[in-house]
């Protein structure tokens, strides 16, 4: 892959950048959906995220990036068998960011029989798919609203259960597949199925900044990047590593933070006011609030954190109200005013 545009050099688009960083801090937040006009830097930002992610420890040689610290339940079959008395050999790798291209076929997404091995060694081997590679990392789908229906179907179940079960070609394999689903698309190309929409924890709508100053900065950054990619990336290195440290600190910190009763109550009230379906909205809201507080290095989770994440958590979870013409963001904004004052 050619060198990616650095994340920190992206001008504006703070909501999108913040949502991606929250997902990097707490991967359980459940995915980020970025919808917006063409040419607003959606793909650029997501591809740039890979460079920012810290390293994780995995079982050496495991094709599912198993976590050596996890109890056996969270391991793939091969790691579970090997886990008797001695510890696994580990290696540290970058958090994977796996691209799911539009034209992918089902066998490559969920995995299939390894034909070469079957023929030459007479071995019934499973060739892991993209979902396995994305375990503990990010799965990125560009133009997510154009993804074929049967691929979406297989994604939905795995994203909800965190486990990929393959029953095909005489194979019966199950392996953990917890990943952060990241999707981007242009709303004009088509709607997203509500089931898929629900799998995304955060969603942001983005537009191009319309003031001249920001635009000039965008052009300048892009132009100097195109001119000499390596030098540009080198120049951004300090900022990048500062941000990486911030994310790492946030990841370490996130489990130490506990939301106060007030935060829990206010988020429940927000969800009730907006009438969101189910509890997923509330759970995600609290997780995202906590992740943001951790990212900012705060000692407590405050209402300000809640206020900041609420639009991206709740915006895509509203039921359509026939008598309310204003957009979902405006409705969330009103509810925030009402609940948080």
């Amino acid at each position: 892959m050619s060198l990616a545009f650095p994340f920190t050099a992206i001008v504006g688009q703070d909501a999108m950048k913040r949502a991606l960083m929250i997902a990097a801090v707490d991967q359980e937040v459940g995915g980020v959906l970025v919808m917006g006009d063409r040419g607003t830097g959606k793909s650029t930002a997501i591809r740039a995220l890979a460079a920012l992610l810290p390293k994780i420890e995995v079982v050496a040689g495991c094709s599912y990036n198993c976590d050596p610290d996890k109890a056996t339940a969270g391991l793939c079959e091969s790691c579970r068998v090997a886990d008797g008395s001695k510890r696994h050999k580990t290696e540290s790798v970058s958090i994977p960011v796996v691209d799911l291209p539009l034209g992918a076929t089902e066998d490559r997404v969920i995995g299939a029989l390894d034909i070469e091995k079957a023929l030459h060694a007479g071995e019934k081997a499973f060739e892991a798919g993209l979902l396995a590679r994305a375990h503990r990392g990010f799965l990125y789908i560009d133009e997510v609203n154009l993804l074929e229906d049967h691929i979406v179907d297989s994604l939905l179940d795995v994203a909800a259960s965190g486990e990929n079960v393959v029953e095909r070609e005489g194979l019966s394999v199950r392996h953990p597949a917890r990943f952060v689903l990241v999707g981007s698309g242009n709303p004009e190309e088509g709607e997203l199925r509500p089931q898929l929409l629900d799998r995304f924890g955060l969603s942001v709508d983005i537009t191009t900044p319309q003031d001249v100053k920001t635009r000039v900065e965008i052009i300048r950054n892009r132009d100097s990047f195109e001119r000499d990619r390596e030098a540009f990336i080198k120049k951004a290195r300090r900022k990048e590593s500062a941000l990486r440290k911030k994310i790492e600190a946030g990841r370490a910190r996130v489990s130490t933070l506990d939301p106060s009763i007030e935060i829990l109550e206010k988020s429940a009230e927000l969800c009730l006011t907006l009438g969101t379906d189910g509890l997923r909205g509330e759970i995600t809201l609290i997780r995202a609030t906590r992740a943001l507080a951790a990212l900012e290095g705060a000692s407590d989770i405050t209402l300000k954190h809640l206020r900041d994440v609420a639009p991206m958590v709740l915006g895509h979870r509203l039921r359509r109200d026939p008598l309310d013409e204003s957009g979902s963001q405006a409705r969330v904004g009103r509810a925030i005013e009402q609940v948080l004052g």
Partner: protein
Amino acid sequence: MTDNDVASSFGWPLALRAAEVFSVAPHALGGVNVKAFPGPVRDYWLAQCEALSPKSLLRKIPLNVSESRLLGGLNFVATATWGRPVMEQGLLAECHEHIALIPMAERAETRVLAFIGQSLDTGFVSLQRDGFNDQRPAAFGVLALNEGLDDEPLAGSLDERLALQVQLTGINLRELTPTTLCAADIAQAQREWRVVNISVEHMERLALISVLLGIVSGRALQFAVNTAKVLAALKNLTQCDDASLELAITLTLGHRATRIPTPEDSSEPPPSPPDSEQHASDEAQHQQNQSPPQDQVLEAVKAALPADLLHKLAAQQRLRAKQRTVGKSGAEQLCLKRGRPCGTIAGDPRRGGRLQLIATLRAAAPWQSLRRQDPTQTQTHSGLVIRKQDLRLTRYRHRSESTTVFVVDASGSAAMHRLSETKGAVELLLADCYSRRDSVALISFRGDSAELILPPTRSLLRAKRALAGLPGGGGTPLAHAIDTANLLAEQIQRGGSTPAIVLLTDGVANIDLKGEPGREAATDDALTSAARFRAQGINAVLIDTSPRGQSRARNLAAALCSQYVRLPHANAQSLFETVRAHV
């Protein structure tokens, strides 16, 4: 501007400049949207492109290209011969460092364009198909031959990624002149354009103009910068000059304009965008600093704007408004059950759909020798081994039928005016609907409620009878009528058809939802019902039947988000034509 630059701001010279610029940096600029009918002018233009970059070949990507051919995948023949999976390179990867030619690009499928767009963005094509996991370079430029001109624009996802647009219609054969550049000039510019400098002042000017023209995309700006640099490189400059910048704006930004800048725009806040205050201060600042070149550049852009831009913008907005509705009447839909067969799709026939035997056999064929050796299967097969993933279903394309629902105001106030004319027009519409094999339904409202006189039907005769026996007189329960229409439209949608509502009324409501008389409550109820109707996003036309246009009917049309047509002083025929044009 020099004379040469002035001459190249329109017509053939401009098209020629676009070809030259594109040849220098095909991938960095994405490509050219070539608006032209097939003919000698287009051929000549393409020949110029080929002559300018002899090293890159034009690879045609046909409309009907299959996904597997485009992206690559299993090589059918080699796999069958050698008995092991053999990968085949896709068209996109074959286009690497060449030029992809897309004929009739306006007709191309969204998914095909999405693949091309991703390669344009990343310069790669990644393959996750048929057991292969691969990534290949695919940096190419696109020449999208667009014969749709204005009524059928190029899909936005592709147009956005093409820096340039040339308009070859209206160019006379006698105007054609060959390019003055040779392949060596292009090659030299190819080496040098990236290091051309562009000043901050120029970038500011670009940003300002893009805001004035209402261009939102960041890509467009990048294209403008690159084009300016290429133009400067073609003149052997290392610093971008004013003339190059202006020509670059004409080439890359002119056709993307969504609004026309007026002279006042640069000194006063533009009225439409929401964040206008910010512009205003910025613009005022710029105005002081650099007003003469600013005006000059703006003039250049305006000169390059097509004269009928406003007209086109309005048309585009209509188009967009239409796309927002649930479906255009008679929109084409892909489906597994009925319609004209068009291609196949992998799937399970048990879930519905018809098995396409030939395609299934073709999908299974290359794997036969492998599957017979498959040690995981204990049985030995003598015949064909077909697996679930080979199954192919026929895919059909059908025009979803539309159902026109007439909602006719038969109350006293309307009856007095033009009930008979209305009836005549409706009958003509019915005849037209019939000829398009569409269904018709009729709701009439008078007295204290609305009534479904004619459920959706294709029988013209039945419809005519229902309409002939239509009684008139009484109050106007407009709210109830809208609710009834809404309900019916929902039913029609659930049945798989696309509803279109034609509401004939003068917009004066006097019976509310409870059936009580009272003008104010009735109007309020009608507007509430209209909001509910609007949320459904159904295509609607309101025909104002009052003798003079009533503001009430106009307000109602706005609340319904429907089109408003005043019944002109004319006969049923002209009303019929109005509705046919709008639905």
